[in-house]
């Protein structure tokens, strides 16, 4: 703790001004320090930080502390704080803006790598699974169920079925590491009589570019996926993530 009082007149508060400009609905000035946000935030106390403190530090212009603390990566952007806040102070978006001020190479490598990997092909898979591999795994697993499970001789796991009602996304973890976990989902869709399909393009549910706050590439990925849904003429885009 500083033993001298902070001299706020020396602070430039550039981040505060940036928030006011980019997040005019963020209600930064409405915070009355009640602490409701901090009381219900599981990230409270990590890195000696909490959401109320974060907001106060922005308001006081303590830019250096606010923009260097790794705490912004320990907030899960869960939105419980803004949900509970009587003044609807938009803390999660302020955390997002703080993430964006970090140089890309300084942001957590695992998140950046997952974002980059998803940009490598049109599947958008953060684990790098390509179109052929995905289709092969799905068809192979479905075939095995049809052959080996009594009563499931008709089970379908359609890929690229034009005009299906539902376009289903799938988290990469299943096709890549535990494909059998997809079967219960297919069975439920079958029993419900759903008209659904996967697409070889845009099937991966995850989008780490959002968490990396690489918004340009986040949008790129969303557009690849939306186009895949449109190209198959599906009505509903279902994301199981």
């Amino acid at each position, binding site marked *: 703790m500083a033993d001298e009082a902070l001299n706020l007149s020396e602070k430039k508060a550039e981040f505060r001004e940036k928030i006011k400009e980019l997040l005019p609905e963020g209600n930064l000035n409405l915070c009355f320090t009640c602490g409701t946000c901090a009381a*219900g935030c*599981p*990230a409270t*106390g*990590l*890195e000696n930080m909490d959401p109320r403190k974060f907001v106060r530090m922005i308001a006081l212009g303590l830019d250096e502390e606010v923009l260097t603390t*790794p705490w912004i*990566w*320990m*907030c*899960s*952007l*869960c*939105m*419980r704080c803004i*949900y*509970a806040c009587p003044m609807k102070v938009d803390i999660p978006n302020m955390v997002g803006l703080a993430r964006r001020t970090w140089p890309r190479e300084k942001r*957590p*490598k*695992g*998140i950046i*790598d*997952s974002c980059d990997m998803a940009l490598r092909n049109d599947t958008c898979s953060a684990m790098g699974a390509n179109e052929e591999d995905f289709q092969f795994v799905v068809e192979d697993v479905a075939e095995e*169920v049809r052959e080996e*499970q009594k*009563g*499931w001789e008709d089970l379908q796991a359609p890929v690229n079925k034009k005009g299906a009602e539902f376009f289903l996304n799938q*988290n990469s*973890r299943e096709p890549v590491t*535990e494909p*059998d*976990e997809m*079967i*219960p*989902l297919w*069975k*439920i869709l079958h*029993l419900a009589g759903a008209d659904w399909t996967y697409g070889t393009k845009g099937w991966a*549910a*995850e989008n*780490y570019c959002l*968490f*990396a706050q690489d918004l340009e590439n986040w949008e790129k990925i969303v557009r690849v996926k939306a186009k895949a849904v449109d190209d198959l003429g599906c009505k509903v885009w279902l994301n*199981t*993530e």
Partner: protein
Amino acid sequence: MQDPCQLVRKSFGDPVAEDMRFVVKSVVGEENFIDMTPNMSNNYCCGGGGGYLQSGYTEARHQYGKMKFDQIKNTGATYCIAPCHNCHSQIHDLNDHFDGGYHTVHLWTLICLSLGCLGENERAYLGPDLAEVGL
């Protein structure tokens, strides 16, 4: 059951949380369902969201998740249903890390189990008490 932030608080709110409870109670029996407190839109995040699982801040992620872990333990339940991928990974990992003694299952597993159509290789997350049921 975990109310995923993404599905409940951030997207469809309490109505979808009610729908999930209808499904879960139909599947496991009303008397076997124990809610966490707080829940629905007020629920605490598990700590798997926002890129946390890939961020490399593992110790912080466990500390963050301790709140969720305690919430789960306080129900006394032996199964936690996690109807979201990130939640499932995180809650499963919290059990390993803090030695919780509960099982973490996908909702689809329990739906198929109750319908009597859960295959032999689709039971990776069931405990020994349910692993053979309906085979």
